[in-house]
Every structure is written in C-alpha cells, then in structure tokens.
C-alpha cells in the first residue's frame, strides 16, 4: 500500500480497519481526529513529520498484539512509539499508518532484589526503574540523556546507551528477556531469566532493531548494585588535540572511567552562562572523568586519573569535593543541549562513532566544515567510547539553513565511516541516517538486513522505510556521492 494512495479519503478497507480497532479497544484508546493525532506527528527529530491514520493506545500486552493482528490483516503499516524522544525519526509516522503507542503499558510488574531483575512494561520510563530499585541499593545502568522521559521499550528498540556505557554497557548488555508481539499478533519470548537461552541469540538481534521486527510488550532488565561513592575530575585543556590524547591515555593506563565526556569551547561557552557549573571559559576543551566504587577505590583511581591528564597537558584539574559539586560539574554536561538551544533558534544533534585515536582529526575536520557550510557546531560527547554528538546550530526559518545542516551532518557521518567508525553510536538510523547506511554497508549486507526483516515481517508492515534503505534508494543516493570515480555500489543498476 503506497502512502500516496492513503492520502486520499479513507478507503473502504481502512474504514473497516478503524471499525475493528474501535471494537477491540476502549473508546479513549483509539485516536483518529486531526487535533488528537497532532502530538504524534513527529518524535524528538521534529524536522520530519507525518500524520498517521490513527493512534492506538492499548493498555495490555494482549491488546497491543491485537492491534498488530488487525493491522496485519488489513495490510496497514504500524509504527510503534514509546515516549517519542528518539532523535533519528524512528517513530515518525507517515500518512496511512497506525501508530501503536505503548504509553499506557507503564507498570513496573516486579522487582526481585535478590535476583536483581526488574520486569516492566514497555512504557515504563527508564529513570522510573532506577527510582523504584533505589531503596534496594540497585539501579538500571543505561542512562540515555532523555532518561527522565524515554521508555524502556524505546530503549530496547534503539539499543540506547548513555554516559556510563563504557563501564556498564548498552541496553543489549542489560537485558535478560523480552516479550515481543509479532506482526501476526503472537507474543513470543526472547532470552530468559537465566544467563542464556537455547538457539540463536534473538534477544540481541531484536535489540536495536528500531521497531522493524516486532513490538516489545514486556522487558526483564538486569539491575546492578549502586556504587557506594562517585567523584569526578574536571580537567581543562588549552588544545582540543591534547584533550583527545588524554582520553586515549586514560584508557591506555588501564582505567575504565564510569564516565568520560568531552566538551569543546563552543559547548562550554553555551553552557557556562546558563548553568554556572564552574567550567573554565578560556579552555579549548574540558574533560569530565568520573570514578565510582568504594571510597578507597575511588580515591586511588582519582589520583591516577589526575596524573594521566596532567601528563597529557591538562592546564587545570579539579576533583569534586562532595556530591553537590559532582552534580554541579555534571549539570553543565547534562544541560548542554538545552543550553545550545538558548543560543541558536534550532540545533541538530548528530550521533556518529569513531575510534578514539581519530578524535582530534575528526574534530578538526568538523571545524573545516563549519566554514564550508557557514554554520556553527558545538561538540559535547561520550569521548571514552568515541561517540560524537556534534550539535549543528541553524535557523529553520532561514531559507536553505536546514538543507545545509543536513548536508553538514551527512558529511560528518560519512567522515566517521571513513575513519572506521559508524554513522550511529546510540541514536539509531531511523529516517535521519538512512542514506548514510548506503555508505556504511554494501548492497550484500543490506540485502541480508532486508531478508532478516522478512523472516519476522514478510509483508514489511512494521515501521517501513526506516533503518534499512532499499537498494534502489542507495543507487539513487550513490549517484550523488561519487568520490574519485568510486561508486559505493558499483554492482547496482543506475536509475
């Protein structure tokens, strides 16, 4: 079913689908009026929008599965949605689709402190799990910056990371079991509460599959003991390259920090007047390097971190003296995006990853692109695992600025791939980076992705048009991206 066909007045079959959905769900659980659909037009990447046919808000796993079954029977695409905080357009609807919101499935079903697991519905907020487990001395480690709002179902779909994933892993490392509703409306279980499950690791395959393979209706996650203590070193550098080298030196010294974040001068300049975190305004870059563990362990590690960063040329190292100061040092990092939002009408957050040894070269190249595209860029990112988040500043009301921003962002991602990295470290491909998938993967790998999707969803009804580009699309994109006579997909016919 093509989107254009669906833009016309609802056909007899969609009217029949809406009737069946209405019969299957309570009245308030199906939205079809324009003003009710409006909030679902986009996710956190608001430059892309679409109006769905309807939004279904089931309150049980079985009802969610029933929505999928009915849409499957009608041949209507389904876009699963959690809190809509995603930054790659993974939950962007398009005309003629049904949005399946998991927002009402928001109960924590069980926390077992001895087994250190939480069984939750997909609409439970990431931070709510840690809050509920706090009295037991436990928490859920992955902490994407949107953790106050984003849901665990969305975290699974995107394999979300966060500030602490160098030491504590991504979503995939902290999941034990999923209940997944398939497009047929069946509910299957992937993984188990044991540490492995027989057969292929479908739990891993499913994690980060961006809503293309099924819909999470329940997740069992691993909880870990809260460290007794944490302290952070705020180190200033007069040169971005030295800060990047310090990152490699810390890891090279055998230290795995709980968090290791870098902010460049434009980011510091945006944040400090807004948050007053105490960042040095004259620094070319700062590093925030956190140690956690027992008080003795942390004391020992902090000394080593300071020594390594001083040797790498830090002009100043300040260690948080108490919890209040630690939180203040982090407050600047955590408010970086809104702070940038204050100094620019719009900003576009990119998400590429690279080997750490290429940090300085890539950041330098981004400086050059600022001139080329006539746009400013602030960098604030997870340096410890090489995950960049360039924030491109633009004004959507100025003609051509969004277009230049997209081209700027695309060039950064392709640069990441050239340095042996990835077009997305943690935000997902969605619709945003779908063309760059053609740069990172060859046509044979893309074919395998499509075939795997068909194994779960033969008719291609789950979140179509996201995450994996068609070979046709790559061929068209490839025609624009001829560098030095090398076509990315020389074996494909050109259209």
């Amino acid at each position, binding site marked *: 079913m093509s989107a254009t066909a669906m833009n016309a007045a609802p056909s007899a079959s969609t009217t029949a689908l809406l009737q069946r959905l209405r019969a299957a769900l309570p009245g308030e659980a199906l939205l079809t009026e324009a003003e009710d659909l409006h909030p679902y037009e986009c996710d956190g990447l608001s430059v892309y929008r679409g109006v769905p046919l309807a939004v279904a808000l089931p309150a049980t796993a079985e009802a969610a599965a029933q929505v999928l079954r009915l849409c499957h029977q009608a041949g209507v695409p389904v876009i699963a949605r959690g809190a809509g905080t995603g930054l790659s357009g993974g939950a962007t609807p398009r005309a003629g689709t049904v949005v399946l919101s998991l927002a009402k499935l928001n109960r924590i079903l069980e926390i077992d402190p001895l087994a250190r697991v939480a069984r939750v519905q997909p609409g439970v907020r990431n931070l709510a799990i840690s809050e509920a487990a706090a009295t037991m001395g436990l928490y859920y480690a992955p902490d994407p910056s949107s953790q106050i709002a984003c849901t665990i179902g969305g975290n699974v779909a995107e394999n979300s990371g966060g500030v602490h994933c160098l030491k504590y892993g991504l979503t995939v490392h902290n999941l034990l079991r999923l209940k997944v509703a398939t497009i047929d409306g069946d509910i299957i279980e992937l993984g188990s509460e044991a540490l492995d499950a*027989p057969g292929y690791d479908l739990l891993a395959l499913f994690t980060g599959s961006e809503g293309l393979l099924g819909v999470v209706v329940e997740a069992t996650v691993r909880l870990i003991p809260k460290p007794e203590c944490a302290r952070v070193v705020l180190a200033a550098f007069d040169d971005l390259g030295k800060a990047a080298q310090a990152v490699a030196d810390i890891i090279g010294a055998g230290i795995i920090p709980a968090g290791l974040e870098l902010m460049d001068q434009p980011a510091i300049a945006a944040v400090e007047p807004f948050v007053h975190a105490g960042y040095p305004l004259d620094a070319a870059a700062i590093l925030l390097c956190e140690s956690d563990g*027992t008080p003795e362990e942390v004391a020992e590690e902090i000394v080593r971190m300071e020594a390594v960063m001083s040797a790498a040329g830090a002009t100043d190292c300040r260690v948080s003296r108490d919890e209040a100061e630690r939180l203040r040092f982090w407050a600047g990092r955590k408010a970086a995006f809104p702070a940038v939002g204050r100094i620019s009408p719009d900003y576009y957050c990119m998400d590429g990853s690279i080997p750490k040894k290429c940090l300085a070269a890539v950041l330098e190249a981004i400086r050059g692109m600022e001139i080329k595209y006539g746009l400013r860029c602030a960098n604030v990112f997870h340096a410890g695992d090489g995950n960049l988040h360039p924030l491109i500043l633009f004004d959507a009301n100025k003609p051509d600025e969004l277009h230049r921003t997209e081209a700027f962002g695309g060039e950064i991602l392709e640069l990441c791939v050239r340095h042996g990295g990835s077009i997305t470290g943690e935000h997902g491909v969605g619709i945003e980076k779908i063309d760059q998938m053609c740069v990172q993967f060859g046509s044979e790998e893309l074919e395998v992705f499509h075939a795997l999707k068909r194994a779960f969803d033969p008719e291609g009804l789950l979140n179509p048009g996201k995450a994996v580009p068609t070979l046709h699309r790559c061929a068209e994109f490839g025609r624009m991206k001829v560098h030095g006579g090398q076509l990315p997909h020389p074996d494909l016919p050109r259209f």
Partner: protein
Amino acid sequence: MNEDLAALSERILAAAANGRALCIRGAGSKDFYGGPLQGEPLDTAALRGIVDYEPTELVVTARAGTPLAELEAALAARGQVLPFEPPRFGGGGTLGGAVATGLSGPRRPYAGAARDFVLGLRLLDGQGRHLRFGGQVIKNVAGFDVSRLLTGSLGTLGLLTEVTLKTLPRPPAEASLHFELDEATALRRMNEWAARPLPLSASSYHGGVLRLRLSGAEAAVREACGKLGGVAFSGSDYWNGLRDQHHSFFNSAATLWRVSLPQTAPPLRSDAAQLIEWGGALRWLAGPQDTAALRRQAAELGGHATLFRGADKSAGVFQPLPAALAQLHRRIKAVLDPAGIFNRGRLYPEF
C-alpha cells in the same frame, strides 16, 4: 577477497550447488559440543593472525582461525584480557570457535558473555559472499546486530573469517576465598553478595564449599576480603580448572549436563554429582540424566538444559524451542544458508 578466502568461498559455492554438507572446524577443541559432526571438514586454520590491536581503543580484530592462546598472549603483553574468559578445552581453541560456540567462563555473570564483547565480524555465508557486520568501535547501532546473532550459532549461519572484540584491562588485584556451606545457603549468599557493590569475578559451589574470586583495584579487593570473611586460597589453578574444564569434577563421568537457570533458582532435584557456577546460574550435572524430566524441571525453573558432553545425543543436545521460535530459526537459517550446507544438525536436528 584474498586467495584463501576465495578458495573457501569456491568450496562453499560448490557444496551449495550439490547440496553437500560442510563441517566448519578450527582447532577441533569443541568437536564434542553440539549435535554429531556431519559433512566434509572446512578448515579455518589458514585464517590466522591479529589484524589490528589498539589497546587504547579496547578493541582487537583477528582472523577467525587465530589460536585463542596467541590472541590472549598478545593482549596480556599489553595488560589486557578477554573478560568473558572463553574456555580453552585442552589448551586449544580458536577465536572463531570461541565466538561460534558463544561459550563463556567463570567471569560471565560479573563481566558479560562472549556475545557482549563481540563488536563486529566478517563471514562467508552460504552463497559464498564475504559479508561484514558491526564494526571496530564500541558503540555502533547501525543495522541489525548480526554479529551477536552469529555468536553462539555454532557455525550454522556461515563461516566466520574475522572477529572484532572489546577487550578490558586485566584487573590489578585478585583474591580467592572459600566458605563451607550447604547448597541452599550458598545459593542465597552468592545472590546476596552479587547485590552488593563487591568486585566479584567468579563463584562456584561444589562438595560443600562455596568459592569466590574477587578482581579489581587493590583497595576494592582488600576491602571486600575484609567484609566477606572466609578463608583465602590461591585460586588461579582452580578457576582455570573451571574455565577449561580440567577440574576433576568434569572428568568424573562421560556424560555432562549443563543446566542454565535464573541465579536464584532453588537447588535442582537430582542425585547427580553437581558443580554450580555463575552465582547459581549454571549447574553442571555429571552422569546420565532422565532427559525429559531434567528439561521439564529446568523449564519450570525458567531455564534450559544442554547435553554438554555425551556419547548418546539421540534426545537432542539443546532444549527444544517453542514452535514460533523454531519457525523463526528456520527462516533465519534460510537467509544466510539457503542450501542448508553449514554444520547440519549441530544446533538442532531439523537444520
């Protein structure tokens, strides 16, 4: 594609054309694991050597036929380890075999499994295509996670040619403790301790003795020993004995069952000699068992039972899958090995 890969690819294409089974094999150290070997051997020994190792990236890439010993020695020279402690049965084993079986050693519950450390890989699929998934960076969510899907797939989806793993620094300090306890108390303690911020890195229970290994910063290990009590012992041979299964328990019978359960599952109802690992999540049983009864019990407790070693594999090595999952497995198999030539019957008899 270089020469040795091209030769392997040609053999795969020829086998696919004739529907002939191929048996992918590295060092053969895990020939005993999984369903009986079928088909002509496809040897990966030529695919040897470390391709790239950057200690400051915590990333190593090596060809699949690289001996684990060679890989681990290169990491040790830079003060790093493979944190999932892949078993080296009989001292052998290749990187490809470690990833294809997906087996992990004593540190698994505290550091993660083989699949948790796989960042990317390359494989020859059933159509002889040389494919690359994942990458050489720690964070990468582009495309489906085919690298982790391949981990533990027992070679049924393709021939691994190159693997990229995340490494970690070797913990600077280590200590081992033992405690005399009954089984139920030991299981409870292992879980209670795992819920506290202690630097646990291994645990076992056998013959009335609970053993723990602590690894981490000097201060953390010293403090933890003080808090836990128990009797210190020199543990490195003992933990290697569990990792590589040369501990006498593993040789006490020809048949060995591996029962994977939630860590807090109660003691198994069984008269067999038993060794518990992984904080209670792994229960090894020596000697033949009533397969159906053991699998039923494991399933009721939320886990599964594997016939890890044994002469008679007629009852199936792995716990059978529910119908919907079995169908997904067949479809996924068909994506990467449409002619059904790779490691036939090694995972499940039907493919």
